[in-house]
């Protein structure tokens, strides 16, 4: 999968959780949760959605690495290989 | 033909006429003479009728109201002006224990042909001690008649039949009406026995009196804009109540709201509601509602006074709630 593919999956998953989000307006290098109102349950569902879509297991210890959109995409790409 | 007149002028004319027509009539009260009347109802009277018949009194309400009772017993036709209903509390004993009872207590030998006039009501930011509406206290007492003129016609016309009445009559004049102007038809006639329909409608009967009448009429206009036609009944005579007119309005509209500036508990509104239940129960299509003063001494601050008193908006809301 290309980085663009992964990014598209991430954004689609995000949108399923927060339908009001305008994905074009998101900046990749700012903390995601400063840009989208996601509570802990939303965040969990977001990661769960990625887990289902990409079959990537994300250990809880890694949650803290996932801050910006770019972080998430890079992390997933490393896992998907 | 008709002419334009204020409530104040109408009342003044009525008194002038009474004093001119009947030498037994005299006016007595605080500042009615040299001052010209606290509300200028007797301006010029002292010069016209002299100090014997336009009699300034000290601030001695119990004394001069009781003296009015005695003068009536003695053959005169006194008009006693008590500055406001608030001060009438000082004279309550003579009104309730003397004026109202003499006819019956004496086995019909002594009648008291006395007229007591007083200003009543709130709405001018005069605070708790100067804002009472206690008409229903007097309307509770057998032996007196209680009137509440709320139109130019009634202000002009109620005094003569009150003076002609062989028994004591108490007239409540709401201070909020004094500057009101209106047309007085040349062929006016006024009785002191019946309630009057001031506006015809079919959806709800709003029953009121005195200073609340203009508020009810304003509310009726608002309701009309929303397609609700209110029939407005002006009680005019608070004792004895004209039950037939009330019952007829309820039979016509099937819904009734009573508006009364008195406090809700033990109010005149309560009596009107009781009459409706007694005489028109089977005509009711909704529980009877009432808009009264909130159960608090009338506050000074305007926004609180407004909130404490019946207002057109509250009347409209009560009607709308009733209609569902």
């Amino acid at each position, binding site marked *: 999968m290309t980085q663009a593919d992964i990014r598209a999956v991430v954004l689609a998953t995000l949108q399923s959780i927060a339908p009001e989000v305008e994905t074009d307006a998101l900046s990749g290098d700012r903390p995601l*949760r400063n840009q989208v*109102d996601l509570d802990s*349950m939303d965040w969990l569902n977001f990661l769960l959605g990625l887990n289902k879509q990409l079959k990537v*297991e994300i250990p809880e210890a890694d949650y803290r690495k996932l801050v910006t959109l770019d972080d998430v995409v890079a992390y997933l790409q490393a896992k998907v290989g | 033909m008709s002419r334009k007149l204020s409530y104040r002028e109408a009342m003044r004319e009525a008194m002038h006429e009474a004093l001119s027509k009947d030498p037994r009539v005299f006016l007595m009260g605080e500042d009615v003479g040299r001052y010209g009347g606290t509300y200028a109802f007797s301006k010029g009277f002292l010069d016209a009728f002299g100090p014997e018949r336009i009699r300034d009194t000290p601030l001695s309400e119990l004394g001069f109201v009781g003296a009015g009772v005695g003068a009536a017993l003695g053959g005169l036709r006194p008009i006693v002006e008590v500055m406001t209903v608030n001060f009438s509390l000082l004279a309550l004993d003579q009104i309730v224990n003397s004026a109202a009872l003499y006819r019956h207590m004496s086995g019909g030998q002594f009648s008291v042909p006395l007229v007591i006039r007083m200003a009543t009501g709130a709405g001018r930011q005069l605070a708790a001690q100067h804002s009472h509406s206690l008409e229903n206290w007097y309307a509770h007492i057998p032996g007196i008649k209680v009137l509440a003129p709320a139109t130019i016609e009634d202000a002009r016309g109620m005094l003569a039949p009150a003076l002609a009445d062989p028994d004591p009559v108490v007239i409540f004049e709401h201070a909020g009406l004094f500057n009101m102007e209106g047309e007085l038809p040349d062929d006016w006639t006024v009785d002191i026995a019946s309630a009057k329909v001031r506006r015809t409608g079919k959806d709800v009967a709003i029953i009121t009196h005195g200073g609340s009448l203009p508020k009810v009429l304003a509310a009726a206009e608002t309701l009309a804009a929303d397609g609700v036609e209110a029939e407005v009944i002006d009680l005019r005579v608070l004792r004895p109540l004209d039950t037939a007119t009330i019952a007829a309005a309820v039979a016509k509209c*099937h819904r009734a709201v009573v508006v009364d500036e008195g406090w809700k508990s033990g109010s005149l509104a309560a009596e009107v509601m009781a009459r409706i239940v007694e005489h028109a129960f*089977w005509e*009711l*299509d*909704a529980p009877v509602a009432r808009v009264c003063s909130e159960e608090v001494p009338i506050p000074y601050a305007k926004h609180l006074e407004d909130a404490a008193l019946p207002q057109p908006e509250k009347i409209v809301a009560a009607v709308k709630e009733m209609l569902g």
Partner: protein
Amino acid sequence: MIEFKLPSLGADMDEGTLLEWRVKPGDAVKKGQVIAVVDTAKAAVDIECWQDGTIVELLAEVGQKMPVGTVMATLLEAGEKSLPSLPASLPQGERGGSQLPSPLAGEGLRERGNAPAQRRMISPAARKHAAEKGVDLDSLTGSGPHGAVILADVETAAAQGAAAASRPAVAATTEVPSAEKGAARIAAMRQAIATAMARSKREIPHYYVSEDIPLARALAWLQTANSQRSMAERLLPAVLLLKAVAVTLRGYPELNGWWRDGSFVTAERSNPGVAISLRQGGLIAPALLDAGSKPLTQLMQELTDLVQRARAGSLRSSELTDGTITVTNLGDQGTQTVFGVIYPPQVALVGFGRIVERPWAEDGGLKVLPVVTASLAADHRVSDGHRGALFLRELAELLQHPEELDKEAS
């Protein structure tokens, strides 16, 4: 005969619009079964039936807006003798809002006359007029306040009776664009929240206490537990907090229940209402039923499901009415402290702020620990600050032993 009325699903609900019937006349229904879906100011809610029985007649029509307490349907109680000539056999279309007087309906419904407790509200004028015109009052649907039968209902029935019963009154349902509906829904929800919260602040003498609770042990335990779980089964700290509240409440019945008609009623179980903010704005607090006695894994699943359904607008009526306390959890995006407004008729609200690392003095030393500030807003008519403080202390203590919370799965 049972009258099934539109239930009140909260202090802020006074009317609802029927969206869907899930049953039809003749259906047997069980206690707890969803029989209708009703749109309230807050959400579309599944309405449950509270008795076993058989549906006789559906009185409310889809699209009809009605006040709480309106009779929506009639049911025969289980065991009550079914009459062969019940209006259940009538085609539904003929039983429009106008409700023509039908001798059959009259027969069946007059039974109700024997139960004075369920007396319908009929105005005196309607009674008199109905007697004069020979209109059967029992066959009428009231359009007055609180569903009362009023003169207009009798007059309509009389007029339609005279104008031959052939014209079926089909209510034209006009489709409202959904965006417009959404905006109206938000405004309505705002209004509902305004009503409930204003009532709360007007009627409930709130007192507030708060306590900082160290969460090092709880979070460490959670981490260990989660490391052995699949992603989908991982637990959020929120679940631990909810469970801890529910368990602690067992010793504090005065915080768990409802203030009704001037006195307090203790709830048998603790059903914490979980405050969930909705994406389009507004707030709803459906209950996690009997949270104290469920294992953490099950609670987590139920919480996930509850949040999802709250946002999708498909909650069950019992979830909206059965909350015995509200728990608001600001989570990791919130502020450190929250003091809530009690949701009437409940008498308490527990608030959790954001879990943050803070300096913590203990045993003469200073450490850095994850700490959460828990607050309690409670009704002073029912409990006192002293008990409220003890509750928070006990909650803090319980959270130092997270393993016990998992054991509490009796």
